[in-house]
């Protein structure tokens, strides 16, 4: 899932202050699960905006809406009338959702309410951690299902480095395990330690962000 966090209210206010009608739009998928931009967070943000602007002597109309997925045309289509009736849209979706609104409603003024942070998973209640950078050429098969690109601070494909101590990463020993310790333990557990005898060649990063903005076309799906 995409993990995000709410922007500081002051930053949001700097964008929406002065608008007479503000539409706060949430997304009930990834950012609802990470409790950043779902229906409840939309309500919290809208309430905060009302309280903050009231203190400034302003009484804008602030409307709350949420859609199932803000990153898809079909789901945001229902927002058309509401967006047209408001001066400003505050999107509580990830960056994809914000840009979907911009592309589908080119006349709308859309501001982001979240900082999109990473693709990850919830480890426990209130804790999310990164698992994938979307490099475009998955190597999880070689490393026991643990991604060295995402989880090693140096992204080493032939690790560990000298900064691994007691199974922890030197970058943040308290919070970060050494990815290569995890890889070793995992490969040992599933009987594939011999995989570590293979030297991994330099990675072709052209499938990642280094090759520029990416686009995927499934010709069998295009009519």
């Amino acid at each position, binding site marked *: 899932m995409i993990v995000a966090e709410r922007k500081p209210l002051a930053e949001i206010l700097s964008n929406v202050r002065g608008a007479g009608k503000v539409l706060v739009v949430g997304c009930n998928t990834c950012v609802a699960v990470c409790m950043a931009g779902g229906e409840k967070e939309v309500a919290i943000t809208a309430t*905060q905006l009302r*309280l903050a602007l009231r203190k400034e002597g302003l009484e804008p109309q602030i409307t709350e809406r949420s859609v199932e997925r803000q990153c898809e045309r079909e789901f945001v289509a229902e927002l058309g009338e509401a967006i047209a009736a408001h001066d400003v849209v505050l999107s509580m979706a990830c960056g994809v959702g914000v840009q979907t609104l911009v592309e589908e409603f080119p006349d709308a003024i859309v501001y982001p309410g979240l900082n999109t942070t990473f693709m990850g998973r919830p480890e426990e209640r209130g804790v999310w951690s990164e698992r994938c950078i979307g490099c475009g050429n998955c190597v999880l098969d070689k490393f026991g299902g643990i991604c060295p690109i995402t989880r090693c601070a140096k992204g080493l494909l032939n690790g560990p480095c000298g900064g691994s101590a007691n199974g922890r990463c030197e970058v943040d020993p308290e919070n970060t395990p050494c990815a290569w310790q995890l890889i070793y333990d995992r490969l040992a557990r599933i009987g594939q330690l011999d995989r570590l005898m293979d030297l991994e060649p330099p990675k072709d990063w052209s499938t990642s962000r280094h090759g520029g903005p990416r686009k995927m076309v499934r010709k069998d799906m295009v009519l």
Partner: protein
Amino acid sequence: MGASDRMVVMGCAHSAGIARDEWAAEGCVLPDDIEWVSLPCGAGLDELHILRAFESGADRVMVLVCNDGACQSVTGNRWAEKRVEEARRLLEEVGIEGWRVAFKTISPTMVTDLLPSIEAFRSFAPAQDEASQEGTS
């Protein structure tokens, strides 16, 4: 800022609610400017409830839940405390002092403590330089 103009008390039905019912059975009533909101459990409290109370005109909110070990949802009281802390943070972002939300645990038998606790918070007014730090929790 002096005493409260309008205060909301959010009380767990398993502790504060029972104390309040016993207190009411003795013929006592809450002052008109105090609104009681019954929570089925402290675990049901959400920071949004607190924000919405302020949006509706409350100038302070008191949350009363069960003592440790007495919560029927085991950790509902501590969850409520977390929600209060988050509500304070959200209110401070808006420019409303965090001390305006109080958190207190209470047992169903603490009938005689109920009103004094509410009144103490109702009249609480920190000194200007302490306003950002003071609270009653």
